[in-house]
C-alpha cells in the first residue's frame, strides 16, 4: 500500500456535490465524438473509469459552445444546440450508476481552430494575431459578437445542467478564447476588454456570470487555466495567481483546474503535455501556489502517472484533486486496485504520448500498452475465464508475446512462454536504451509481472525449437518472435549498420556517421541522439520532408530539441541510393527526392533504419502441422468470435505483432489481446 492513500481516498465536497475520492480525469479530446455528440464509444470509455473507482471523470475537452468554434477538427462535442442534451442524460446516468461524477469542459477556441471545416466561419479572437499551432489569423471580435458568444456559453451551461452533468468547467488554458483575452501576447485591444489585467479579465468574467445566471448558482462551474504561460509576452505566474484569486473571490468559479504553460507552438505544446522525458508532476508548484490564494478546490493534471505522487500532492496540500488522465488511459481501474490493495497490479502510464499524438493527427486516442482503452465495446479490461482450459505455447516475450501470455493466463489456460533472450521485453528493450525513452521499459515490466503472478511458465534464455514446442503438446501456438532489422534496398546495403546494432550496444561507433531513416519514427531519432551523445558527428538523412516526420507532436519537439542541442545535422528530402567503400571509410550516395540531384558523403559509418522484417523460422516449421496452416480468420477477429478451428485434430498456429509484419507496440499488443480474449 502506498503512503498517504487515505488522503487520496477522502471524498471532496464542493457546493453540495460529493466526489468520492481525489482522483479524476481531466477533459480531453480522445477523438471518440461522433456527429458532435458523445455516443456509445465515448460513454463506454468513461464508464470504464467510473467502474474502476475514479471520483470524477470529465469529458469533452474543448467542447464548443458556438458555431464559429467548430467541434469537427477534434471529433469533439458540440454544446451549441439542445440536441446534445439527451446524450448528456444517457451519459450521466451511465457514470452515476457506478458512483462517479461527470463533468464537461466548455469552450470557445477563438483563433485556436480551423476556418476551413464545418461551417467555414473565420476564426475569431481578441485581436488579429496569428497562432502558430492552428495557423489561423483570427478576426477581431466586435462587441456584438462578444455578447453573442457570452450568450452561447450561458446556453451551453444550461444544457449541461439539463443533461444531468454534475458540473462543467470553462477552458481558459492552452490559448482558448478566454485566455486569448487574458494574455497580452494576443490581446491588443484598446476598448474595455483590453489593456489592464482587470480589463483583459472582463470577457471571462462576463462569460462566467452569464453561465451562473443560466445554470443556477448551485451548479458547479469551474475554470481550467494556466498557472504560468512561460513566455515573455504572455501571462506571468503572478498574473495567473491574480486571475484565479479574483475569479474565486468573486464567486465566479467553484474550482480552479491549473496547468503549466500554453500550447501555441510545437515546443509549448510538448511542454504542456509532458512526455516521459519530464520528471513526474513537473508543474505541481503552480497549482500549489494558486491553492494558497484561493478558497475553492484546486485541481491539477500534468504527468501525474503514479498514485504515490498523486497521494503526496494531495496529502501535502498542493492540490485538492489530482487528475490522472493518461494514467487512466493506461489503467482505468487504478483507483479500484488501490482500494483493493492491488496497487502492484496497476498498469502505469509510461508517458509515451501515444494517446495524444494520435489525436493531433486526426486519429482516435489509443493507449500504447492497453489495447482495450477506447475499445470498451469490443475489448475487455477484465479478461473473463474461458470455459475450456487449453495448453498454450507462446514463442517470444516481447510486448505481443507477453500480452498473449497475460490474456491466456487470465483466461485460465496453461501457458508456456519461451524467450530466447535473458530478459522479457523484445524490441522495447532496445527502444528503452535510448536517452529519454527509458520509461518504455515499464511496458514489459508490468506485463512480465502480471505473467509471473498469473503462473505462466516463463522460460527465459530458451530458444524454442519446433520439437520443444511440440513437446508441450499445445492446443494453441502463438508466434510472437518479433522482427529483425532490415538493411534496406540500397546498393551496398550490407555495408550499413542498423539502428538496432547501435542501440543494442553491439557496435560502438566513433567519427562521422550518416544515419539514413526511411521510417520517420523514434528509432532513427533516438539512435541519432545516442550516437551524438557519444561523440559522433551525425548527419540525419531522410527521404521524408523533415526528420522524425511520423513522431507525434508531444514527442517530436523533444527529439528536435535534443538533436539540435547535440549539433546533429538534418538533411531531409534525400534518398540513400548506394554505399560503397573508399579506403577504410564509406561513401554514401544520396539523391534529392525532388530534383534527383545526387550528392555524396564520405563517412566512417552508415547506419540505416528501414523497419523490421518478420522472424518467422519457427512459424514456417510449424505451419504445415497446424490445423489452420497458421492463418488467422480475420472475420472472426473483427466479429469478436473465437477462431473457428477444430483443436481436437491438432494445434492451431497464430502469429502476432512484428512476427506478422513490422508495426509498433500497440499493434503487437492489440493483435494479442483480440486473438487471445476469445481463445
Amino acid at each position, binding site marked *: *500500500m502506498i503512503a498517504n*492513500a*487515505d488522503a487520496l*481516498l*477522502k*471524498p471532496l465536497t464542493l457546493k453540495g456535490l*460529493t*466526489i*468520492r*475520492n481525489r482522483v479524476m480525469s481531466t477533459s480531453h479530446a480522445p477523438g471518440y465524438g461522433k456527429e458532435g455528440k458523445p455516443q456509445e464509444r465515448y460513454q463506454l470509455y468513461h464508464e470504464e473509469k467510473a467502474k474502476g473507482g475514479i*471520483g470524477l471523470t470529465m469529458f469533452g475537452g474543448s467542447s464548443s459552445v458556438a458555431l464559429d468554434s467548430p467541434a469537427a477538427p477534434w471529433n469533439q462535442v458540440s454544446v451549441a444546440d439542445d440536441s446534445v442534451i439527451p446524450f448528456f442524460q444517457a451519459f450521466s446516468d451511465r457514470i452515476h450508476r*457506478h*458512483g*462517479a461524477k461527470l463533468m464537461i469542459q466548455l469552450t470557445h477556441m477563438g483563433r485556436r481552430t480551423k476556418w476551413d471545416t464545418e461551417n467555414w466561419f473565420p476564426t475569431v479572437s481578441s485581436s488579429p494575431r496569428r497562432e502558430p499551432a492552428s495557423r489561423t489569423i483570427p478576426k477581431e471580435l466586435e462587441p456584438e459578437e462578444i455578447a453573442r458568444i457570452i450568450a452561447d456559453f450561458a446556453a451551453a451551461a444550461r444544457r449541461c445542467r439539463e443533461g444531468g452533468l454534475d458540473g462543467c468547467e470553462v477552458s481558459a488554458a492552452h490559448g482558448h478564447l478566454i485566455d486569448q483575452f487574458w494574455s497580452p501576447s494576443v490581446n491588443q485591444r484598446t476598448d474595455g476588454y483590453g489593456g489592464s489585467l482587470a480589463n483583459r479579465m472582463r470577457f471571462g468574467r462576463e462569460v462566467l456570470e452569464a453561465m451562473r445566471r443560466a445554470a443556477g448558482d448551485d451548479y458547479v462551474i469551474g475554470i481550467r487555466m494556466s498557472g504560468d504561460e512561460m513566455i515573455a509576452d504572455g501571462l506571468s505566474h503572478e498574473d495567473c495567481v491574480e486571475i484565479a484569486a479574483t475569479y474565486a473571490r468573486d464567486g465566479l468559479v467553484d474550482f480552479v483546474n491549473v496547468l503549466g504553460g500554453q500550447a501555441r507552438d510545437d515546443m509549448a505544446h510538448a511542454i504542456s503535455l509532458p512526455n516521459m522525458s519530464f520528471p513526474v508532476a513537473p508543474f505541481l508548484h503552480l497549482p500549489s501556489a494558486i491553492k494558497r490564494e484561493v478558497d475553492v478546490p484546486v485541481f491539477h493534471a500534468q504527468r501525474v502517472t503514479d498514485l504515490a505522487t498523486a497521494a503526496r500532492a494531495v496529502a501535502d496540500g498542493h492540490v485538492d484533486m489530482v487528475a490522472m488522465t493518461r494514467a487512466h488511459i493506461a489503467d482505468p481501474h487504478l483507483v479500484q486496485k488501490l*482500494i*483493493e*490493495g*492491488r496497487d502492484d*497490479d496497476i498498469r502505469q502510464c509510461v508517458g509515451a504520448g501515444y494517446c495524444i499524438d494520435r489525436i493531433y493527427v486526426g486519429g482516435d486516442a489509443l493507449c500504447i500498452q492497453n489495447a482495450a482503452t477506447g475499445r470498451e465495446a469490443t475489448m*475487455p479490461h*477484465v479478461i*473473463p*475465464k474461458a470455459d475450456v482450459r487449453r495448453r498454450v505455447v507462446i514463442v517470444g516475450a516481447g510486448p505481443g508475446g507477453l500480452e498473449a501470455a497475460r490474456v491466456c*493466463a*487470465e483466461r*485460465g489456460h496453461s501457458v508456456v512462454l519461451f524467450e530466447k533472450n535473458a530478459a522479457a521485453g523484445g524490441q522495447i528493450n532496445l527502444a528503452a536504451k535510448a536517452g529519454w525513452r527509458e520509461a518504455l521499459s515499464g511496458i514489459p515490466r508490468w506485463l512480465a509481472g502480471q505473467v509471473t*503472478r*498469473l*503462473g505462466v511458465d516463463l522460460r527465459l534464455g530458451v530458444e524454442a525449437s519446433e520439437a520443444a514446442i511440440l513437446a508441450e503438446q499445445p492446443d494453441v501456438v502463438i508466434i510472437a518472435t518479433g522482427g529483425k532489422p532490415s538493411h534496406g534496398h540500397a546498393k551496398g546495403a550490407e555495408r550499413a549498420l542498423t539502428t538496432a546494432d547501435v542501440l543494442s550496444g553491439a557496435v560502438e561507433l566513433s567519427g562521422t556517421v550518416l544515419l539514413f531513416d526511411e521510417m520517420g519514427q523514434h528509432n532513427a531519432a533516438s539512435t541519432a541522439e545516442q550516437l551524438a551523445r557519444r561523440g559522433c558527428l551525425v548527419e540525419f538523412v531522410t527521404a521524408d520532408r523533415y526528420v522524425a516526420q511520423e513522431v507525434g507532436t508531444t514527442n517530436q519537439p523533444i527529439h528536435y530539441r535534443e538533436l539540435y542541442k547535440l549539433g546533429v545535422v538534418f538533411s531531409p528530402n534525400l534518398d540513400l541510393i548506394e554505399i560503397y567503400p573508399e579506403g577504410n571509410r564509406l561513401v554514401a550516395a544520396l539523391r534529392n527526392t525532388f530534383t534527383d540531384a545526387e550528392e555524396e558523403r564520405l563517412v566512417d559509418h552508415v547506419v540505416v533504419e528501414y523497419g523490421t522484417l518478420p522472424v518467422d523460422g519457427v512459424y514456417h516449421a510449424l505451419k504445415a502441422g497446424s490445423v489452420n496452416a497458421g492463418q488467422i480468420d480475420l472475420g472472426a477477429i473483427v466479429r469478436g468470435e473465437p477462431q473457428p478451428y477444430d483443436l481436437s485434430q491438432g494445434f492451431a498456429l497464430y502469429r502476432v505483432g512484428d512476427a506478422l509484419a513490422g508495426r509498433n507496440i500497440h499493434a503487437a499488443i492489440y493483435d494479442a489481446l483480440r486473438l487471445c480474449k476469445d481463445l
Partner: protein
Amino acid sequence: MPAFGFPLLVWLMAAVAAAAVAGRALRWQWGRPARVDWWAGLRAVPRRYLVDVHHVVARDSQAARMHMLAAGGLLAGSGLAALGVIPPLGASRLWWAVVALAFAVMLAGAFLVGARRFPVRPARLSGGRFQLLPVLLLGYGLGGFCLAAGAAAGLPAGRAVLAVTAGCGLALAWFTGKGPMRHAAAGTLHLAAHPRPARFAGQRDVALQPVDLNAERLGVETPADFAWNRLLGFDACVQCGRCETACPAFAAGQPLNPKRLIQDLVAALEPPGPAPAYAGSPYPNARPVAGRGGRHAPIIGAGAMIHPDTLWSCTTCRACVAECPMMIEHVDAVIDLRRHQTLMLGAVPEKAAARLDDLRDTDEANGHGLAARADFAAGLDVPVLAPGGRADVLLWLGEGAYDLRYGRTLRALVRLLRAAGVDFAILGAAEKDCGDIARRLGDEATFARLARENVATLAGVGFSRILTADPHALNSLRNDYPAFGGRYEVWHHTAFLDALVAEGRLAVGALSGQTVTYHDPCYLGRYNGEVEAPRRLLDALGLARTEMARSGARALCCGGGGGAPLSDVAGDRRIPDLRMEQARATGAALLAVACPGCTAMLEGVTGARPEVRDVAELVLAAWEAGQGAPAKRAALELQA
C-alpha cells in the same frame, strides 16, 4: 464397635474440612459485599453442576469419567459411612456392603486420577500437592473399601487399615482449605453465589458491570477491592490448566497464564511472607515481581503480586472463561484490575494512552473526524439518518470504517443491502465510538460517556434494528448498552446476510471450486454465541468449508481484542501468526473473517497464507457471479 470407628473418622474429616473452609471464608469476607440470592443460588447448584459444569468438563470425556467416579464415590462412600453412627445402619452388613461398593467406585476414579498424572504429568496440570492427590485418594479409597468390606464381612478393622484411611482422609479434608480439594467446597459455594448467575442454564451473561464513577476508589487495587464472591471464585480453581491451553497470549509466549493469574489472586490474599507453592506452568517470559500479597496491598506492579505486562497481555477473548469448569470469570478480574490502573493511576500502556486521549478529545479512537467515518461510502449515496428520521435498519459503522481495508468490506455490505432492497441508513457524523476499546482498557469513564451519548443519539432516530459488521460494536450495543438505558435488537452482518439469503431476498451464485475456512471473532462467537450463521452463509455460496483446529465457540483469538494490539506486550510470537498457522493447516485458499480487528490482524501475517476475505466480500462476489457479471479478478486469483 469397630464399625463405629469409620463413621466417626468421616465425621472428624467433615469437621476438619469445615474448619478449613471456615478459614478460607474469613479471607473471602475481606472482599466487598455483594448481593447474593442465596436461596435461589443453592437451589440451582445441582442444575448448575450437572448441566453447566458438566457441559465444560465433558469436553474432555476422560476427565469427566474420572471426576464422576472419584468425586461421586468419595461423597457417596463417605456420606453413607458417616450415617453408620446410626446404630441399626452401623450394625447392618448389607449397609456396609453398599458403602464398600461406593468406595470401589471411588477407587476406580482414584486410579484414573493417577493415570492422568503418572508416569508423565501433562504440562497444563499443576504438580506439588496436586501430585499427591491420587495417592491420598487411593489411600482413602482403598482404606474405606477395606473397612467397609470388613464390616460387611463381620471382620474387625485392622489398626493399620484404619490408620491409613484416617491419614489419607484427614489429609484430603485438610486440603479442602489449602490444597487440591479446595475446589470441592469453594467450587460448590461459587456455583451458589456466582457473581454472574445469569450465565447458567444455557444463558449468556457477558456484559461488564458499570462502575459508580463517584466512588472514592475505582476498580480493584487490592484483594479487598474485589467483591467477596469473586474471591470465592478464585478459590474454586482446581488448576486443571484448561484456561492455559486456551489462552492465546500464553501460546504466544506473552507473560500471561490465566491459571497462574488466578493463583496469584489467591496468593494475594495471604499476608506478606513466603508465597504458597504454585506448581503449574509459569507466565511465559515472566517479568520479575516481588510477589508480595496482603489484604490491602496493591496487586499490580513489579513490587506487588502481578506484573502490569501480565495484566495488559489479555485480549479479553474469554477463551479461559469458556474453558473453565469452575466457572471462574477471569476477564472480569482483568477488567476490574485494569480499571484501577487506568482510572486511578493513569498507568496505561503508552500507545493505549494515546488512543484513550483521542477518544476523550474527539469521540473517536484515532482522532479522525466523525464526519470522515462515512468517507468509505462516498459515491454509494448511503442515506444519513437526521434526528427524527427513520429507517428499518440502522447500519452502525464502527471504528473499522476509517480503515481503507475494512472500507472494502463495508462497501460490499452496502451494495448487498442495496441489492436486497433493505431500507437502511447510517448516523453519519452523529455516530461516536461505541466505547468498546475504552471499556476493555479500563477507561470506564470514557466508555460510560460515549455510551450515554450514543444512547441519546439513538433515541432521537427511528429504526427497528441495528446492523453492524463489527462484533465489538455489536457486543457493546447489545450487551453493554442496556445498563445505560439502550436496548436494541442488534444484528451482525453475517447473521443478517444469512437471513437475506435464506429469505430469498439476496440471490447468490456459486463460488465453486474454492475452499474456505472461517475464523470466529471472539466477540461474535464466544461472547454472543453466533457461530452458525456465518457458516450457513459460506455453505450457501458454494464454498467448500473446512474447520481449523479450534473453531466455533472454542476458536483461537486473532490477538486483536481488549486493546492488546495497543498494549503490545512482547512475547515469543504474534498471536495472529499462531491463528494463521491453524488456517494454513486446513489447506484452504480463503480465510473468511467477520470483524475489522480480525481482518487487520490476520491480513498482517506475512508469508504464504490463505487470502483473507470478509464474509460480506465473499457474498458480494457470489452475488455478482449470480448476476452473470464477469468473475472478479480477485476471485480468479485465488485459483491461480
